[in-house]
């Protein structure tokens, strides 16, 4: 009970600290702008964008499922990286361990989005004859599912890629079946994530 209280206190304290960052940066932006220091105002705004990316990332992590199939999430590995750069915000969560570890990543401004969207929009390109690639729908969103089979171990790994605007969601699951993969993918709340990141 005492431990839970401490964790709750730490989370609340960190949330307040982050809100303070945003409030401090917006105050800096306002005062710099009104005093004509445009570059300082611009810098404060860049910081605000970072604050917002981090806030968005944390909210998305809260939405992601705690379990994928039988595997529990490793909350210690939850990560949000905000870049005021080309890559945009990167959100990461993983499940399980060892050779049965699933990875779920969201990458803002992903350079892969354009090519995946092209594949999704051309019907005969999306589905390969050998069954290694197919287009599926997850919560109504078009997604690309890829299968790879290890020659020696015959282990089947799957990768699911869902473009959401300029963000790419990638879910990789080794040693699983297509049915299980689709079932797990459908537990990802794509609509809510879309609403939050756009």
């Amino acid at each position, binding site marked *: 009970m005492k431990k839970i209280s401490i964790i709750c206190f730490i989370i609340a304290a960190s949330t307040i600290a982050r809100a303070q960052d945003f409030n401090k940066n917006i105050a800096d932006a306002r005062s710099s702008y009104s005093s004509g220091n*445009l570059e300082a105002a611009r810098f404060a705004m860049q910081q605000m964008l970072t604050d917002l990316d981090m806030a968005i990332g944390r909210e998305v992590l809260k939405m992601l499922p705690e379990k994928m199939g039988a595997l529990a999430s490793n909350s210690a590995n939850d990560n949000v990286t905000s870049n005021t750069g080309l890559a945009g915000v990167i959100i990461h969560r993983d499940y399980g361990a060892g050779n049965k570890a699933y990875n779920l990543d969201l990458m803002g401004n992903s350079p892969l989005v354009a090519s995946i969207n092209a594949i999704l929009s051309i019907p005969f390109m999306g589905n390969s004859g050998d069954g290694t690639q197919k287009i599926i729908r997850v919560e109504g969103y078009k997604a690309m599912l890829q299968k790879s089979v290890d020659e020696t171990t015959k282990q089947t790994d799957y990768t699911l890629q869902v473009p959401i605007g300029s963000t790419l969601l990638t879910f990789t699951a080794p040693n699983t079946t297509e049915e299980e993969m689709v079932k797990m993918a459908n537990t990802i709340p794509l609509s809510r994530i879309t609403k939050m*990141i756009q």
Partner: protein
Amino acid sequence: MKMKIVLACLVTALFAFQADGQGFVNKLKQKADEAASKALEKKAKEKVGINDDDNNQTPDASGSPSENASQNRNRPTNKGGGGLVATPPDVNQNLSDAETSYKAGSYGEARYAVQQAMLGVEMQIGQKVLESMPASVSGLDKVGEADQVTSSGYGWAGLTIHREYLKGDKQLTTTVANNSAMMTAVNMYLANGGYAQTTNGEQNWKQTKVKGHKAIIEYDDSSGYKLTVPLGQTSLIMWEGVNFTSEQDIMAAANSFDIDGIKKMLGEK
């Protein structure tokens, strides 16, 4: 035998009639299509207020109106609409919107408002940089309508400021780029300058200094001179001179710019 001949004649007549009949039906269909498209065309013209007087004067060789001509007549051409008002976003208003959205937990909306505010600030920075540039350089006057400030409001994609000077066939183009991806290439040039200069057979570029700032000058017979000065960590200023007589000529033009002032305005150290 007689019977066979009669049968053959009958079959031939039947086919002939059928073929003729099909041709007749096709012609009828074609006429009906033409009439329908004419009627639609007329209705459309009445709606947009186009005079139909010259409609019957442009038949093609077959006597029916030219298809291309009728398609072109259906598409009105724009005669001007005043364009878009180039008003930069209201910075204070967008900051207030960002604060409200943030408090309401609408982070996506808050992000959009901050980007708009940033766009507004960047446009103002750009205008200030343009104001600091000379009105004429080496006898060339600025081309006012070519002044341009481009910003994406993302912070990383860059703020670009553009000015042109022109007299006769001599032209100077100035570009200031902030948070520019071009910086990587320029810094690579400067870092590996010694090596490239010794291996280059023909001297098309070299390192130099403009008002104490390290720079790269390039020359190409078709495009002329290009002088690039990195400003601080993420910005650069670049001059492109067409029909400049010599290296000294373009260097003198670059020296008439307040490089330190521009660097300061961009917040570079």
